[in-house]
C-alpha cells in the first residue's frame, strides 16, 4: 500500500477519459435527448391541435348532416305535395273528361232520338196518309182536302 507514481498515472487516465467524454460522448447524446424532448413536446401539442380540429370537424359534419336531413325532408314533403296535386289534377281532368263524354253521348242520343222521331213522324204521316187515301180514295179529293190533310200532318 505504497503511495507512488500510480497517483500521476491515474490522474492522466482520469483527465483523458473526462476529456474524451466531454468532447465526444456527452454533447451528442445530450443534444439528441434535448431534440427528442422538443420533438415530443411538438408532437403533444400537435396531438392537442388535431383533437381540437377533429372536434370542430365533427361538429361541422353533424351540422351538415342535420342540414341535409332537413333539406331532404323538405324535398320529400314538396314531392308529396306535388304528387297529391298531380293526382287531384288527374282526378279533376278525368272527371271533366268523363262528364264531357257523357254530355257528348247524351247529345248524340238526343240527336238520334230526334232524328228517329222525325223519321217516325214522317213514316206515320205517310202511312196515315196512304191509309187515309186508301179509305177515302173516292170521297176525298186530294186537292179539296189538302188543307185538312196538311193540318193533320202538322199535328202528328
Amino acid at each position, binding site marked *: 500500500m505504497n503511495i*507512488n*507514481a500510480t497517483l500521476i498515472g*491515474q490522474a492522466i487516465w482520469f483527465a483523458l477519459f*473526462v476529456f*474524451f467524454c466531454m468532447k465526444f460522448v456527452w454533447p451528442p*447524446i445530450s443534444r439528441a435527448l434535448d431534440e427528442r424532448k422538443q*420533438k415530443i413536446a411538438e408532437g403533444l401539442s400537435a396531438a392537442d391541435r388535431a383533437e381540437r380540429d377533429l372536434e370542430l370537424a365533427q361538429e361541422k359534419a353533424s351540422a351538415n348532416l342535420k342540414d341535409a336531413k332537413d333539406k331532404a325532408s323538405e324535398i320529400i314533403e314538396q314531392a308529396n305535395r306535388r304528387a297529391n296535386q298531380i293526382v287531384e289534377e288527374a282526378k279533376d281532368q278525368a272527371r271533366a273528361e268523363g262528364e264531357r263524354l257523357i254530355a257528348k253521348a247524351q247529345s248524340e242520343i238526343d240527336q238520334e232520338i230526334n232524328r228517329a222521331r222525325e223519321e217516325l213522324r214522317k213514316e206515320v204521316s205517310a202511312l196515315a196518309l196512304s191509309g187515309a187515301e186508301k179509305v177515302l180514295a173516292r170521297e176525298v179529293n186530294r186537292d179539296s182536302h189538302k188543307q185538312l190533310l196538311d193540318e193533320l200532318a202538322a199535328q202528328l
Partner: protein
Amino acid sequence: MAASSASEYIKHHLGNLTYGQLPAGYERTCHGHDQTLNDATWTFACNAQEASDMGFAAIHVDSMAWSGGLGILMCLLFWLMARKASPNTPSGMLNFVEMIIEFIDTQVRDSFHGKSKLIAPLSLVIFCWVFLMNLMDLIPVDWVPMTFQWIVTTFFGWSAHEAYFRIVPTTDPNITLSMSICVFFLVIFYSIKVKGIGGFLGELSFKPFEAGSTLGKILLLPINLVLETISLLAKPVSLGLRLFGNMYAGEFVFILVAGMMGTWQAIAAWPWAVFHILVITLQAFIFMVLTIVYLSMAVEEH
C-alpha cells in the same frame, strides 16, 4: 495456493504488481537467486519490501492497466452509443446509456446550479468508471491472479510468490486518492475562477468566524485560516479514502473467505458478493454526488 499460510495468502493478495526503480547497491533475492544491483534499476518488485523501497518512483502496473482498460472500454461503449444517438426512438444498449446520462444529468442539475460543460461529463466518467472498477471486486479473487501467476511462472521464470496481481483498482489508495486530488484541484480552480483569488483567500480567512471591525478580522484570521484549510483539505482525503476503505474492506472479506475456505469459498463469498453489489454501486454514486456537491460549493457564494 501460492502462499503457505492464510496470512501470507492474504498479504500476497493485497500486493500490487509494482514496476519501479531500485537504488544502486540494493541487495535482493529475486527469481530464485541473490544479486546486488550495480546501478539504479527499473524492474518489477519481487516482494512487498522491494515495492516499498522503490518509493515514489514506482507504478502499480495492475491498477493502471485495469483502470485504464476499464476506462477505455467505458469510453468506447459511450462513444459507439453517442454515434448512434438520435432524436428518434432509441433501442437496446442506447436506451441504457441514455438512462445513465439522464440520471447523471438530473443529479448534476439538482445540485450544481452554475453553468459548466465539464461537470456533467466529469460526473458521468466518475460514476461509470468507478462503478466498473468496483465491479471487478465481484470476480472471484483467485481467477485472474492465478492466471497471471501461471503465465509469469511458465513463460517468464518468476517464482509463484513474486506474482503479485490485483484486479480491483479502487482497492489501491493511489487510484482513489488520485481521482479525489483531481477533484480537489478542480474545486480550487472553480473557486478561483468564480470568486477570484481574493474571494477564494477571503473565504479561507474570514469564515466561519466573522467580525465587524478590521481588528476583529485580523484577530480571527489565524483560527479561520486553520479551520477552513483543514476543511478544504479534508474533502479530497475523505473522498478518496472513503471509496478506498469501502472497497478495500469488501475485497478483504473476499480474500479472507477465499483464504479460509479455499474451494468452498463460494458458500460465503456469494452472499457477500450479493450484498457487495449494493456497496459498489453506492460508493460510485457517493463519489459522484460528493464531487458535484464540492464543485457546486466552489462556485456558489456562501
